[in-house]
């Protein structure tokens, strides 16, 4: 009898554990919709960044992507690598122009749902510029699709700035 009770108890515990896990994963999906954007230590380790710069990169990267996801383009402007955008699109990059550009772009591109980082590498021998190999999941109308935009980070005057650009 004791054995049976014990087995029954163990089965119950496993079921409970499974339920807890299911609830946990569902909660993860709803509460952290852009969890795929996180930069892992593995991706950063090969860059040999000083700890302070690495932490700052992670912090500002997450903020930049969050601004992209929530369409907070005026806030995103403060994290923008303005020279990169100005050079690629020959535009006068003011906050007003940038917000207009992003809003126009959103109509064609759709909204960012998730961004997965595949690889990060330096584009020069210095620490000054990083190229991210990313896959973006985008929603346009009722459908979603995957894209590989250009994503770069620049270290300017001790802080990181980013540029995200879609190609056709």
């Amino acid at each position, binding site marked *: 009898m004791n054995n049976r009770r014990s087995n029954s108890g163990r089965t119950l515990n496993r079921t409970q554990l499974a339920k807890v896990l299911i609830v946990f994963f569902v909660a993860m999906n709803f509460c952290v919709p852009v969890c795929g954007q996180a930069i892992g230590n593995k991706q950063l380790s090969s860059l040999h960044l000083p700890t302070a710069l690495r932490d700052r990169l992670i912090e500002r990267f997450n903020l930049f992507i969050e601004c992209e996801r929530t369409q907070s383009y005026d806030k995103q402007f403060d994290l923008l690598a303005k020279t*990169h955008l100005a*050079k*690629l*699109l*020959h*535009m006068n990059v003011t906050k007003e122009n940038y917000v207009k*550009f992003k809003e*126009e*772009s959103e*109509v*064609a*591109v759709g909204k960012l749902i998730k961004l997965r980082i595949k690889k990060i590498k330096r*584009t020069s021998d210095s620490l000054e510029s990083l*190229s991210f*190999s990313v896959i973006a999941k985008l929603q*346009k109308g009722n*459908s*979603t*699709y*995957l*894209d*590989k935009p*250009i994503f*770069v980070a620049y270290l300017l005057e001790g802080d990181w700035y980013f540029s995200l*650009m*879609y*190609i*056709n």
Partner: protein
Amino acid sequence: MEDDIWIATATAELDPLGSNTGAYNPYFNLITDPDEGNSAMMPYPSFSDLRHLGMTYSIDGISVPRDYFISTVEAHFHGSLGLALLEMSARASRPRLLESRVYYPSGQLEGKYAPADVRLAVAMAFEYHGTLERDWLVTDNWSAALNILGGTLPIIDPQSTGFKDWQQTAIADALKEAKALSDPTKGDNQRKCNEALNKLTNGKISSLNSLVSQYIASGAGQNISDGRKVSAGSYGTDSPTVPAFVLGVGTSNATTYINSKFFNFTGFGAAQARALVLLHEAVHQFGGLRDVDFDPRANKEQDIGSRNITNALIDNCAPALRQTLRGLHL
């Protein structure tokens, strides 16, 4: 500031394990080419020459026709001996692997590998069933030739170098060809081409001619890049499968970038191939539609959409170009 880099390279082959099997011809001569003159029948600039198989020419990393290379070298050396010495040096020097590149079957770049990682590059190409490309530098130091001839390397800031004259001419010719191909007033074939994407877009792109006519290749309001190199990942300047691409689709700042592949079309149909590339990019640049908008399936893919546009253009504008444009990402 950096030196302008001119490289005449001869190709060499590797065995599957990356060992050099050697392919250079140790026998060279200093016979100069017969004068081709400037007749109107002169062929379109070619990037290699039957008399110089395996030899390609580049300036600043951009492939250039042999004719252009010759004229540039001769301008600096005041004669044809400079070219002969450069080619001799290219053939005679020991091939050196500069870089390996692996491309997915889709044509997108998987990664670049240093010479020491050539085995890894081979393995990755096998794993992805992709394509492996290896860059060999045969002449890595021909400054001696320059010194012998008293020449100096021109110093040009890479940021300030745009398209060369012959490239600007090729773009202008392609634009002219694209407008002519899709001009509905010229006849039934052109009308068909003009409306190639009308059905596919439910009328959103009713006239290709009106789109491509908005291109301005130079001067005020220029919306085709001037040829300065930009960092654009696997789509960048030297991508072997991307002749052109557009950044900022759907915005008033959209810009079309022309890659070296655009200029590498040669032979019969080269001008039409370039025209079709511009017609395709005009859909993005001025039509505001992305490749993915042309994939009708639920799980959309950029590549499928891009191919649908290109196929519609080939079918309706230039069916003979199907083979020429196969495997390219427009």
